[in-house]
């Protein structure tokens, strides 16, 4: 019995170690490599003890100014898309939760079905239209596209979260003479904050990391950080792995920290999103 328990414990330890290696080693390895001096990146066997240096970050700064412009664009686009998606989803989620009718039920079904359309499909007609409106390579195109591809999930999530707020609260506020938007802003928004954060996590991670739309709709002005990094990979013959690792670390660090801090809301959002729509 004693050996059996020991074996089970050992098995678990091995499983956990494998899992950590699988999930974290690729991330840890690029962060670590970004700090390795010069050619030590290619040392065989790989060096795990070295004197950290910021030389690759310095070269990134001097050789790829476009990357920092990309970070700025990514920040603007992420902030814009998140604000747009969160506000519109909260409104619609509130309506679908509080005014249940055949109309809102059909509208929720519609939102779920729309999620089946692959994003690349809409690039075909939107590309010429965006060009004709001279909106290509602007932040607004990506802001609207990123928000749009999350408002259906966002609405369904917000409805689920708002359903948990007792209706009596709205009714009491209504009797006191509060208008609809006041109820929404003063009562629903604070109580549905976990839902809002869950929607925000999805949109932030997606907008910060997205590649396809940025690749098709931007060229220089609105180019996002992932796109600049993809150009670094593209120049692979002369690719400077040190710079590439430094840029990857800078792009990854904020969103990784964000996910770590918001993990509760991410888990709540994934579970609710998968079961309700």
């Amino acid at each position: 019995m004693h050996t059996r328990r020991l074996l089970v414990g050992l098995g678990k330890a091995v499983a956990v170690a494998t899992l950590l290696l699988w999930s974290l080693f690729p991330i840890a390895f690029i962060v670590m490599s970004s700090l390795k001096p010069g050619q030590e990146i290619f040392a065989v066997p790989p060096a795990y003890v070295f004197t950290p240096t910021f030389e690759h970050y310095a070269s990134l700064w001097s050789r790829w100014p476009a990357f920092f412009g990309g970070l700025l664009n990514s920040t603007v686009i992420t902030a814009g898309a998140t604000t747009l998606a969160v506000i519109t989803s909260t409104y619609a989620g509130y309506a679908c939760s509080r005014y249940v009718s055949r109309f809102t039920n059909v509208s929720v079904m519609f939102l779920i079905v729309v999620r089946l359309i692959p994003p690349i499909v809409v690039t075909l007609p939107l590309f010429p239209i965006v060009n004709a409106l001279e909106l290509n390579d602007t932040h607004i195109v990506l802001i609207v596209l990123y928000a749009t591809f999350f408002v259906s999930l966002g609405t369904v999530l917000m409805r689920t979260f708002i359903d948990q707020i007792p209706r009596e609260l709205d009714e009491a506020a209504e009797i006191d003479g509060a208008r609809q938007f006041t109820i929404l802003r003063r009562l629903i928004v604070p109580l549905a904050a976990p839902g809002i954060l869950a929607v925000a996590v999805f949109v932030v991670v997606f907008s910060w990391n997205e590649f396809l739309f940025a690749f098709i709709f931007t060229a220089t002005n609105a180019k996002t950080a992932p796109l600049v990094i993809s150009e670094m990979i593209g120049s692979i013959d002369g690719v400077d792995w040190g710079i590439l690792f430094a840029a990857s670390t800078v792009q990854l660090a904020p969103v990784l920290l964000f996910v770590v801090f918001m993990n509760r809301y991410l888990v709540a959002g994934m579970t609710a999103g998968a079961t309700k729509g």
Partner: protein
Amino acid sequence: MRSRSFAHVMPLIAPVHILILSMIVIPSIFVIWLSVTKSSFGLAPTYVGLENYIRVLSDPAFLRALRNTVVIVVFAVHAELGIGLLVALLFANGLPFRRVLLVAVLAPYAVSEVIAVVMWRFLFDPDAGPVTLALQAVGLPILDWSFEPSHAMILIALLTIWLHLPFTFIILYAARLVIPGDLYEAARIDGATNFQVFRRVTLPLLGPAIVVALVFRYIFAFRIFSEVWLLTNGGPARTTEVVAIYLYQEAFSYNAFGTAAATAWIMVVASLLLAAGYVFLLRRQVGAHAH
């Protein structure tokens, strides 16, 4: 009362619907029209019926792209489900530092496809990649992914599993947590073995969650673009193209919007069929529970 609530509802749900109609629904319908016409620069588009669809479906490049996509969907998604299930059961079995480990498993969710390609490209670099060196050290074959299409597909599958395991794991783990503990106690008292408990209690009760995770992942894996584009560009010689890359090449490299649009609708219909299968399976499961 009804008209009052309608007046209340409209301003609230209008923004979401305006966004979706203008950016997704109307463009998608326009793609249907594109898919049955032939257009080139300076000429008015002409109606050609199903010609574009026939052309795409008989194009060997499309069929290869479709086969690659199906291979990724079938291989990667099921492997991911198996791993996700194992990890979920490991967590449910009781682990120290569970929250910390959970966050560690979630971490790849934060990683963009671009960064994931940087990571996995270097890990499997034929000369200096740590995984390549480790494989060589223990005498295993290495992945020659930049020359050998099937090796590239393995790397793409690994990368996809790595990026999406957090989602699959969370869905299964959440479902496992809500299975009442008394069911396990009852099974123990009846003398069930671990495997019997898994087979007769855990697996049936996880059924709906497994179907949800599978269908979501089928639908999303079927659209795969960035990972493949950034890793191999569809090459060498279009051997690792997937359907989304075929579509992109038709539209943006060859200016063949008609065939690209036909490909797009083939993708939409495939997603709808997958989702319809999901609804069917879920209905049948709900029905089975009722009896």
